[in-house]
Each structure stands twice: as structure tokens, then as C-alpha cells.
């Protein structure tokens, strides 16, 4: 009896120890195909109770976008009057961003590895590596695994989550991670110690990490100390968003990033195949 127990226990522990965060996200992605619909209904009830808040977020977003549109129209008109200016077409970014809006159907904050499940998948253009951002523009996570009708995203509140964060206005950046403690606070390390930092400074994405375009809000500096051995800051950053309460997210695809992932996967595939 002890032997059977030890064998089974060994198997389970081995599987746990050898699985990667991607394996676990795939597992969730598969099981979500079965229970995702039910979670969708439960989330529907929560959505209903949160309608007022979601509406306010949307109104704020509409206002922001209208303002940006107005500025862009003015700019275009000015450029069109000035025949010596470059053609308007050439103002389009080389790598345009693509957006998908998705509802969060399942989310957690109580684990070491928290994931968000959203109700859009490859059919809606969701791909691995897309940035997940809240409606008010804060970093929430990135897509780890996408199936046809849903996707599993790594939450900021996942000890495996990494992103590159920058002290806004300085250009100095470091690595964002979560320790598994307070769900409203993440760590920002490796920012060089000669950077000027004060409590309350804005932290945004640097654009150097895997998924995130430059300038997405993360939060504000709560406190910091300097690690003399590494000549860098160890900061605590208060997240600007309550990840557990996020109901609707924007998935942002940055084709440049996506091509890099594909390239990396191909190279890795070749290395493994060789």
C-alpha cells in the first residue's frame, strides 16, 4: 500500500515539478473548452452587477479617444494644407497595432500562478504574446495560450510573469515581477541607481519586453531602496488596476512582437529538431 502511494505520489510530484507555465496554461486552455461556457454565465452575472462601473470606464475611454481623434484630424488637415509635408500615408506606423476586446470569464488572485481566461480566441484574431490591457489603459497580462474560442492569459499576478517597466520620463527601465504577496503591488528591479526616482512616480511599459507596446501604464512607485551590490533600485510599484476586478480587457497585437515570437519558436524548433 505504501509502495503504491509512493509511486503515484512520485508521479504527481514529478509532473508538477517538470511542468512549465506554458504547460499549465495549455491545460487550462483545454479544460476551459469544457467549462468555459459555464464560467461565461457566472461572469455574465458579475458583469451585470458591474454594469455601472464598466459604463463609466467606457465613457472615459470614449472621451479619451474622441480627444485623440480631434487632435489627429487637426494634424491631418494641417499636413494636407502643407503640400511640402510628407504624404499622409507615410504617417501610418510601420507596425500598426491591432485590438481585440474580450470579456474576462475566469480570473483569480489567490494563487501563486494566476491566469485570466477570456472569451475570445484564434477565431477572433487572438494570438500568443498579445498584450492584455484594462479599459483604463493599465497592464494586466499577456496571452499565453489561445484556442479557437478562448484564450488563457498570464496575469501580472503570476510569479512567472515578466515585463519591462520604465520610470516614466527617464527612459531608465527594469524588470517587473510579482512575488506572490500583495495583489496590488509588484516589484520593479534592475533600474540603475543613478536614475532619479521619487515616491508616486509613474511606471509604464518600456516597449522592450515581449508583448507590450511602449507607454502602457503599470502603476506608481510606492517605496524603494537601493541594492548597492547591483547598483540598482528595488522598487515596490502599486498597480493602477485591481487585477481581480477586471471585467473587460483589450488584447493588443503588435505584429513586430508577434513576428519575433514566431522566429524564436522556429529557431527553437530547429535547435530541438537537430
Amino acid at each position, binding site marked *: 500500500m505504501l509502495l503504491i502511494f509512493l509511486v*503515484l505520489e512520485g508521479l504527481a510530484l514529478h509532473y508538477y515539478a517538470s511542468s512549465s507555465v506554458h504547460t499549465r496554461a495549455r491545460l487550462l486552455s483545454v479544460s476551459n473548452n469544457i467549462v468555459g461556457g459555464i464560467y461565461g454565465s457566472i461572469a455574465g452575472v458579475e458583469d451585470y452587477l458591474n454594469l455601472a462601473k464598466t459604463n463609466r470606464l467606457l465613457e472615459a475611454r470614449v472621451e479619451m479617444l474622441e480627444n485623440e481623434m480631434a487632435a489627429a484630424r487637426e494634424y491631418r488637415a494641417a499636413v494636407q494644407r502643407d503640400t511640402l509635408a510628407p504624404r499622409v500615408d507615410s504617417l501610418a506606423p510601420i507596425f500598426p497595432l491591432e485590438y481585440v476586446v474580450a470579456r474576462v470569464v475566469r480570473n483569480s*488572485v489567490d494563487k*501563486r500562478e494566476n491566469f485570466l481566461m477570456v472569451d475570445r480566441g484564434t477565431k477572433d484574431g487572438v494570438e500568443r504574446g498579445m498584450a492584455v490591457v484594462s479599459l483604463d489603459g493599465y497592464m494586466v497580462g499577456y496571452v499565453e495560450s489561445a484556442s479557437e474560442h478562448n484564450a488563457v492569459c498570464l496575469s501580472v499576478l503570476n510569479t512567472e510573469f515578466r515585463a519591462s517597466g520604465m520610470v516614466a520620463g527617464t527612459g531608465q527601465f527594469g524588470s517587473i515581477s510579482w512575488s506572490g504577496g500583495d495583489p496590488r503591488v509588484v516589484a520593479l528591479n534592475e533600474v540603475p541607481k543613478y536614475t532619479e526616482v521619487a515616491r508616486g512616480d509613474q511606471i509604464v511599459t518600456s516597449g522592450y519586453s515581449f508583448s507590450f507596446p511602449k507607454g502602457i501604464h503599470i502603476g506608481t512607485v510606492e517605496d524603494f531602496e537601493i541594492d548597492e551590490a547591483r547598483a540598482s533600485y528595488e522598487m515596490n510599484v502599486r498597480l493602477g488596476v485591481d487585477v481581480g476586478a477586471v471585467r473587460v480587457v483589450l488584447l493588443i497585437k503588435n505584429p513586430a512582437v508577434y513576428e519575433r515570437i514566431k522566429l524564436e519558436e522556429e529557431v527553437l524548433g530547429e535547435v530541438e529538431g537537430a
Partner: protein
Amino acid sequence: MRNFLTYVGVFVTAAVLLQLFLLDSMRLGVYFAPLAYVAFIVLLPVNTKPLAMLFLGFALGAFMDFFEGTAGLHTATTLLTAYLRRPEMTMILGKDVVGQENVMPSVKSLGGGKFFRFVALAVGVHCLVFFTLESLSWENYHLVLLKTAVSGVVTLFAVWAVSMLFTLRARRRI
């Protein structure tokens, strides 16, 4: 057969309805992570054979791992809980109780004191092992202990609620 159906009911109530759909949808902070599904193992008939216990523990753990994406973590913990159940019962309830046929642990069948002591021990070990394995480090271990305490109490309450539900139902049927 009726016993079998009862335990299918316990499984669905504890693991699916309570754990996956109700408790997992509640986000009340990092320390609120009840493991109510373990009620299925804790509430099996007192005389369940050790081999059957192991098999059911493995099945329940694998089920939870699949739906929570934890890859082996629930299985490893639940197997241990299933393995330890008989020694725990013998220790708290005594040998003669463990031998009884078809008795589901409940306040009615064991008495309040013994029932809660047994469930608290089983649930406490389960939660402590689970959160320790989850964090995989001794750093900030007081947070693991806090999480075990908060989630353990909620789990204990959940196990009691499931046992109440199924003993009430059994009484009504008679």
C-alpha cells in the same frame, strides 16, 4: 448503489459546484483559497479500503489539476490526504468506529467534537501541504501559514456544510 449515487452527489457538490464554480469565482484576496473539493475524500465512508482511497484521491486530484491548470499539485496533495485518512481516523475516532459499515462522517454519526477534530486535522494537513508545495520555498513561510489558516477554516466550514447537506437528504428519504 444508493451509496454510490450519494458519493457522485458529494463529488459534484464539493468539487464542481462549490469549488470550481462558487469558491473559484470569489476573489477575496490572496489568502482566500479554500480547497473545498477535499470534502469528497474526507467524507467517504469510514471503512473505505485504503486502496480505494488512494485511487479516488488520485482521480479527484487529477480532476482538479485538469480544471485548475495546476499540473500535479492537487494530485500530489490529495493523494497524501487520502493516504493519511485512515491513520488520522484511527487516532481521533478509535479503531471500532473505523470498522463500521457505510457510515459517512458527520456531526450526527461521530458527534460534533470528534467530527470537527477529525475534519480539522485532515483539512489542515491538506491545506498546509498544498500551500507549501505551491510556494516551493521557505521564504515568507508565515504567509503560507496565514493562507493555510484562513483557507483551512473556510474549507472546514465547507466540508461541514456538504456533510450536513447529505445527511439531511438521507434523513428525508427515510
